[in-house]
């Protein structure tokens, strides 16, 4: 990222100035600042834990890190993460499909659109996890209940965002598409979907964040759907057995997976599409 062209007769002062400028530029980058924040947090944590010196209440950063490595290797942390992610993926995909169908109908029919907006507004202030007791009553202890809560957490925010995206397609784009004689499915695929893509991706992102939080919370309430529990269950069990360092390891995994999906999947999708096209800055 630095530009150090070949030069001759550069004095020592010039080189030092160049270095200072490079260093200054590095401190302005986002990743550098993030690393600084993480390091500061880790050090503060380590100091606080040592000063407090009660590993059951607050294990130190290094202990938690060791527990994280240990749990990944031997205690089934990875398996728990995989179990959580597989439930999440099932629910997320189902929710996106359901929402897409609802939005397609809502885009064509104004009554369905108003109905969708009403239902979404009703369910918006309700945390999706609040439906878990009902879900347990209806579907029993098991994956079905988790999926119900998950789908509910994703469908409404995503459907609303996507609907807004389709309604916000500029009139000029619509006219251009119609001008070329596009109708029906071809019109939707070639004009409406790409034009609404920024809103659709942002809806998927919000839906993903809701789903991940809701799932972990649901797993904390009841974890075992089959033989293997998810991450929430891992945290809950570790707490019951007073392995506080493992609780931290579980929490760290939740954060890591969340960040990874956000930074790699969604950010990557955006850079390859809407950012590249200048539809999002």
């Amino acid at each position, binding site marked *: 990222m630095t530009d150090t062209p070949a030069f001759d007769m550069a004095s020592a002062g010039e080189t030092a100035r160049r270095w200072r400028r490079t260093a200054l530029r590095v401190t302005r980058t986002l990743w550098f600042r993030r690393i600084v924040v993480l390091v500061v947090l880790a050090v503060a944590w380590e100091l606080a834990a040592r000063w407090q010196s009660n590993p059951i209440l607050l294990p130190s950063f290094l202990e938690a890190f060791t527990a994280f490595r240990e749990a990944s290797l031997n205690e089934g942390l990875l398996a728990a993460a995989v179990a959580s992610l597989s439930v999440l993926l099932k629910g997320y995909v189902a929710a996106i499909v359901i929402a897409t169908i609802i939005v397609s109908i809502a885009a064509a029919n104004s009554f369905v659109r108003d109905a969708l907006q009403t239902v979404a507004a009703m369910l918006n202030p309700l945390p999706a996890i609040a439906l878990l007791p009902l879900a347990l009553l209806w579907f029993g202890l098991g994956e079905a209940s988790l999926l119900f809560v998950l789908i509910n957490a994703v469908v409404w925010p995503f459907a609303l965002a996507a609907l807004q995206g389709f309604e916000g397609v*500029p009139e*000029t*784009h619509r*006219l*251009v598409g*119609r*001008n*070329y*004689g*596009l109708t029906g499915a*071809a019109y939707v695929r*070639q*004009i409406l979907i*790409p*034009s609404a*893509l920024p809103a659709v991706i942002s809806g998927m992102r919000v839906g993903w964040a809701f789903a991940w939080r809701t799932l972990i919370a649901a797993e904390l309430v009841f974890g075992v759907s089959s033989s293997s529990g998810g991450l929430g269950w891992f945290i809950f069990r570790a707490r019951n057995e007073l392995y506080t360092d493992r609780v931290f390891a579980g929490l760290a995994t939740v954060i890591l997976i969340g960040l990874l999906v956000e930074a790699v999947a969604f950010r990557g999708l955006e850079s390859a*599409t809407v950012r*590249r*096209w*200048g*539809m999002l800055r």
Partner: protein
Amino acid sequence: MLAPAIETARETRSAAPVLEARGLTLDYATERGPVRAVDAVDFTIAEGERLVLLGPSGCGKSSILKAAAGFLPPTAGTLSLRGRPINGPGPDRIVVFQEFDQLLPWKTVLDNVAFPLVVARRKKKGEAREIAADTLRRVGLERVLNSYPHTLSGGMKQRAAIARALAASPDVLLMDEPFAALDALTRLQMQRDLIDIARETGLTLLFVTHDIDEAVLIGTRLHLLSAHPGRTITTLDASAFDIRDLGTAAFETVSRKVHDTLFGRTRAAS
């Protein structure tokens, strides 16, 4: 700026007009019922002619263009393309809008121009791209073929939109104040280039503007409209004028005459 003629003027296919309006009446639906935008307007555009609809805002000139594009059905009267009534939008009448966002942001400039060829003219992608590249070269955009529209200036976007319309080789090109959002210098350059292209290709054009000088420059014929609702005032021949005549006495005379016809009358009436 423009390459020499690639395409020679199209031969005249028939004496029948390309676009014809007979007693064209257009209404807009509002909350308080329909409002008449255009009242019984007649005009014809022959092959290779450039008709400019000129009038103050509210004269319904853009509505006429929308109706010709097939976006707005006539309340009464007829609009026909080569003798067939217009029933809806179609790629035989490509529109160049005023808005810069008419280029689809998710396609490169090249693919934007190739797009109507692929979806409307059923060309293969490679062939469509070749035609698109040729046309873009003709409007001076050979350096931005693979750029996305958001990296282009307003003038370049309008150039690309014009290239897209030309590449699709429609029966008639419809332009709705395409240069209105450009700065004065760019606008002048674009007008000059459009006239050159029109001369080379003999394109048939329906052009909407409220700028009198632009109308006299671009049009071979001017169709003047009054406002609320739009009615025909008169039709003028302007084929003698060219970009070189800008500022000459003859040009000023015609400009003033158009101005007086459009506004003098209303001033006398009020």
